[in-house]
């Protein structure tokens, strides 16, 4: 496996741990905000925490949105969005006003709403992912495995076919999506130890 993974840096999050996790899984990661690096990578990871609008603005200012779209949509380079990175794949963000996202997944990003007693927002901690349909990211990982989440917003896709996993919190939210070779996970594989690393290994194998 000779993978060069562009870990896209738009100034908003802990990228070191994503890079370290990718390396532990046998890939080489490069943290970059240079569109050229995105163009030469075999895989792209878009991590992130923070606000949707600021993140999209940073991506556009660095012309990373265009570079990623070209690579992912035209050249079919495998892509993984993590946490906010998954949310940015959606068409629209609703955090502090309406924002246009990358638009690779049709749908909106909305705030989690607690429905049961004891459900607090942010959703922080380990929770299950229940498979809705098959995905190469899940290879070797049992249905219902716990992953680490820390977020207040979630993606609401309009296409059922793009929903691969759901998590039982706040009425059940979509925690993983897939459109062909484009993947999004709301949890943090880089912080989810053994099973998180398996997700990354599965991604690198695509």
């Amino acid at each position, binding site marked *: 496996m000779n993978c060069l993974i562009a870990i896209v840096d738009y100034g908003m999050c*802990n990228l*070191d741990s994503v890079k370290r*996790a990718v390396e532990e899984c046998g890939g080489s990661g490069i943290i970059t905000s240079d569109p050229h690096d995105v163009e030469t990578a075999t895989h792209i990871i878009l991590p992130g925490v923070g606000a949707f609008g600021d993140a999209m603005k940073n991506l556009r200012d660095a012309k990373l949105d265009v570079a990623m779209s070209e690579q992912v949509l035209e050249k079919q380079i495998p892509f993984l969005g993590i946490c906010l990175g998954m949310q940015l794949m959606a068409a629209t963000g609703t955090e502090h006003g309406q924002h246009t996202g990358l638009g690779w997944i049709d749908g909106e990003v909305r705030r989690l709403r607690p429905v049961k007693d004891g459900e*607090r927002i942010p959703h*922080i*901690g380990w929770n299950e992912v229940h498979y809705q349909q098959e995905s190469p990211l899940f290879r070797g990982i049992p249905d219902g495995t*716990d992953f680490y989440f820390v977020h207040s917003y979630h993606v609401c896709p309009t296409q059922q076919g793009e929903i691969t996993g759901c998590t039982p919190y706040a009425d059940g939210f979509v925690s993983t999506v897939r459109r062909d070779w484009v993947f999004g996970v709301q949890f943090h594989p880089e*912080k989810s*130890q053994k099973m998180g690393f398996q997700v990354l290994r599965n991604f690198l194998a695509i």
Partner: protein
Amino acid sequence: MLKTRIIPTLLFKDVGLVKGIAFDSWRRVGSAMQAVKVYNLRGVDELVFLDITATRDGRPPDFAAIDELADECFMPMTVGGGVRTFADARRLVKVGADKIALNTALIESPNLVREIAESYGTQFVVASIDVRRHSDGGYEVYTRSGTHATGVDPVALAEQVEKLGAGEILLTSIERDGTMQGYDIELNRRVSATVSIPVIASGGAGNYEHMAEVLHETSVTAVAAASIFHFTEQTPLEAKRYLKKQGFAVRKET
């Protein structure tokens, strides 16, 4: 469903890892890196690192040391101690902190909470509130590693930091700290009933029953502990098994 978290707390003083009693009598308990590696192997839910003398000594966080630890830490890691400016927070993100804990700054520069939350999201800011119970039963928030009385009520501060954008509260009872006599139930009940963000109970865990007690009696969603893991044979894994038997949802072993 969301699992109950058991969070070992690692306290630094200078470079070594220490543990005290009631925020005093610090004993060295070994190398932080060793602890991180062991907890990686044992599948610990999350870690909290607090540099307990940074603010008192007027030092910024030890970014280089945290960078090294973060490189080996494949579980969520909250870092606190000496965070006084937005630039401190930004550097901590760069070196690998997943969340940052603010303590003295909650009182001395509350707008920092808002500033950090607006850039990195509310889930990034942990309000670490240290509380002393007075003989008349009243509670008071202390800062600067428990040395400075503020006159502030913990419930009022918890409400305020939630409004400012804190995503979580780490609630530590100073006089229970290190005594292994159990969490301060009343304190944890009051604060967790007031806010709608997650609250982590801290200070006093001496056995697994103490963890079950505070989870039963209050609305905290996680328990932090230090002495129990440093000075006894008890482990986070056994704690989880115990809590599972008591009917709590804990992470499956993988």
